[in-house]
């Protein structure tokens, strides 16, 4: 491939919320591993006369996602019907949002290689419902599709970016960050394998040329767009984008224009396959959902929700670097998962308290190192216990590191002969020094540790 195209990539991500009940009915929203069609009711089965009543928590969570992505929250919003026929769509329409989403016009800042930053614009964040699930089987020689409606009506949030990505690497960085934010908000586990996070990149290529020895990119967006579906892992999205870039470059090299279409990613064959071209593009016949009154927020409701937002990773990282002198690299590792970050912060709190009481404590660096090294699993211990363990391991009861060192040095200085024996290879000679030290320390330090320390000093 000749490198004369720049990819233009936008992304649609669906995130399944982990509310207890479904989006528009009281059915249990968990469907993973459940008996088929055991979590349904008239509403999510699309039975005659059933009506949707929206789940307040799901809407609040959708707004929180929007807020975390720096979106504006319009004060007026509504649901719309998106009409199309498919056997897994019980009502023949999906309740979604068309022209008045819950959140719009946001951005997210990505950290790329070498801590390079890039801002990606978020076009909109809206609320909708999931469809049922299809399984394809052959029964008595007949090819059939089986439908399970347990997933029907589970709340979905769709996050749409502007076409701001130029590489698979950027897309991956975005997805990781988005997943991290979603998990921080505790609104979804965003597990791709379980379908809780689904991606649909749209990819096209823009030509660039050298003009007056200057690098120029065609300012207009390409006139076509290829949407790729069925991607269920971070790695597949990379493969799919790379594949599309190659495929489209080839077509453009031949002087042709790639077809505007929807393609499906086939993981086994590592290629995308055409599914639907523009000619049979769907006409979704959106119109305002008459069964659900509009949503109108008061500014104070929005502000109140904003005040409930947890501190997000970017802010944490910055704070760790600034307040605790943690390196960016380490801060990023600690903030990667909310649980660990919270453990870190709790540990610091415990240590501050000890310091205030003038008791032995730990410095930020020691805390950071022990958390990063994972010698003790933070998942299996409380912060206070964690501190005690580290204190036990690094320091000695009643004696601090410096004092111990000075005692040992005195013993080394006073036993020149033994030291020389040890250094010339008589390893057992060290035990004499240990014995001397133990007498001096009156059992405040374990023999093993004294031995280790002596060995260090004698190196």
């Amino acid at each position, binding site marked *: 491939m000749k490198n004369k195209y720049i990819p233009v990539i936008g992304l649609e991500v669906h995130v399944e919320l982990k509310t207890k009940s479904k989006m528009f009915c009281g059915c249990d929203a968990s469907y993973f591993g459940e008996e088929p069609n055991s979590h349904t009711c008239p509403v999510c089965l699309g039975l005659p006369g059933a009506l949707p009543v929206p789940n307040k928590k*799901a809407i609040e969570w959708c707004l929180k996602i929007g807020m975390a992505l720096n979106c504006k929250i319009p004060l007026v919003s509504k649901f719309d019907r998106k009409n199309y026929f498919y056997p897994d769509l019980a009502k023949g329409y999906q309740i979604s949002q068309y022209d008045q989403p819950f959140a719009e016009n946001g951005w997210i800042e990505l950290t790329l290689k070498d801590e390079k930053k890039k801002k990606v614009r978020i076009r909109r964040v809206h609320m909708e419902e999931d469809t049922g699930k299809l399984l394809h089987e052959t029964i008595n020689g007949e090819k059939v599709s089986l439908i399970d*409606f347990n997933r029907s009506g589970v709340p979905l949030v769709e996050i749409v970016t502007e076409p701001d990505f130029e590489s698979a690497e950027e897309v991956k960085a975005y997805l990781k960050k988005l997943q991290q934010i979603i998990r921080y908000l505790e609104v979804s586990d965003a597990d791709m394998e379980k379908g809780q996070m689904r991606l649909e990149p749209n990819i096209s290529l823009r030509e660039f040329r050298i003009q007056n020895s200057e690098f120029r990119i065609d300012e207009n967006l390409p006139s076509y767009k290829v949407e790729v579906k069925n991607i269920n892992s971070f790695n597949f999205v990379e493969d799919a984008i790379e594949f599309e870039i190659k495929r489209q470059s080839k077509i453009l090299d031949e002087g042709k224009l790639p077809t505007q279409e929807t393609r499906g990613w086939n993981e086994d064959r590592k290629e995308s396959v055409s599914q639907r071209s523009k000619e049979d593009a769907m006409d979704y016949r959106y119109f305002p959902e008459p069964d659900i009154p509009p949503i109108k927020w008061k500014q104070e409701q929005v502000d109140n929700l904003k005040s409930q937002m947890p501190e997000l990773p970017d802010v944490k990282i910055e704070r760790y670097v600034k307040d605790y002198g943690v390196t960016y690299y380490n801060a990023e590792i600690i903030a990667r998962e909310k649980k660990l970050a919270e453990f870190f912060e709790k540990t610091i709190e415990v240590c501050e308290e000890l310091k205030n009481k003038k008791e032995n404590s730990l410095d930020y660096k020691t805390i950071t190192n022990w958390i990063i090294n994972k010698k003790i699993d933070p998942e299996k211990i409380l912060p206070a216990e964690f501190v005690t363990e580290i204190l036990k391991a690094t320091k000695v009861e009643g004696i601090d590191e410096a004092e111990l060192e000075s005692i040992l040095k005195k013993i080394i200085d006073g036993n020149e002969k033994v030291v020389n024996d040890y250094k010339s290879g008589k390893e057992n000679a060290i035990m004499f020094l240990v014995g001397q030290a133990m007498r001096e320390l009156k059992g405040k330090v374990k023999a093993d540790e004294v031995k280790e320390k002596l060995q260090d000093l004698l190196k």
Partner: protein
Amino acid sequence: MKIDIKKLAKLANIPLKKDEEEKLEKQLEETLKYIESLNKIDTSKTSETNEVTDLKNVFREDIVERSFTQEEALKNAKHTYNGFFVVKAVLSEEMTS
């Protein structure tokens, strides 16, 4: 007003016979012509009404309620298999929302 009746029938998922197509096409065009008179009304300064009784923000709390049993869910279906609804095979790689 000309209607592409075949395309419309596909979109509406309504199977039509040839004679039905012809009859419907004529009737739909007639109806569209009739309702054209709406264009005489100036609505340039009017916003649309989607909810007549001025309700807003009607939600439910996130509480799980009783669902149908699998048996109840499948009760009215013509074709079922192992707790699933059954349809003739459809394309596996189709849209997700």
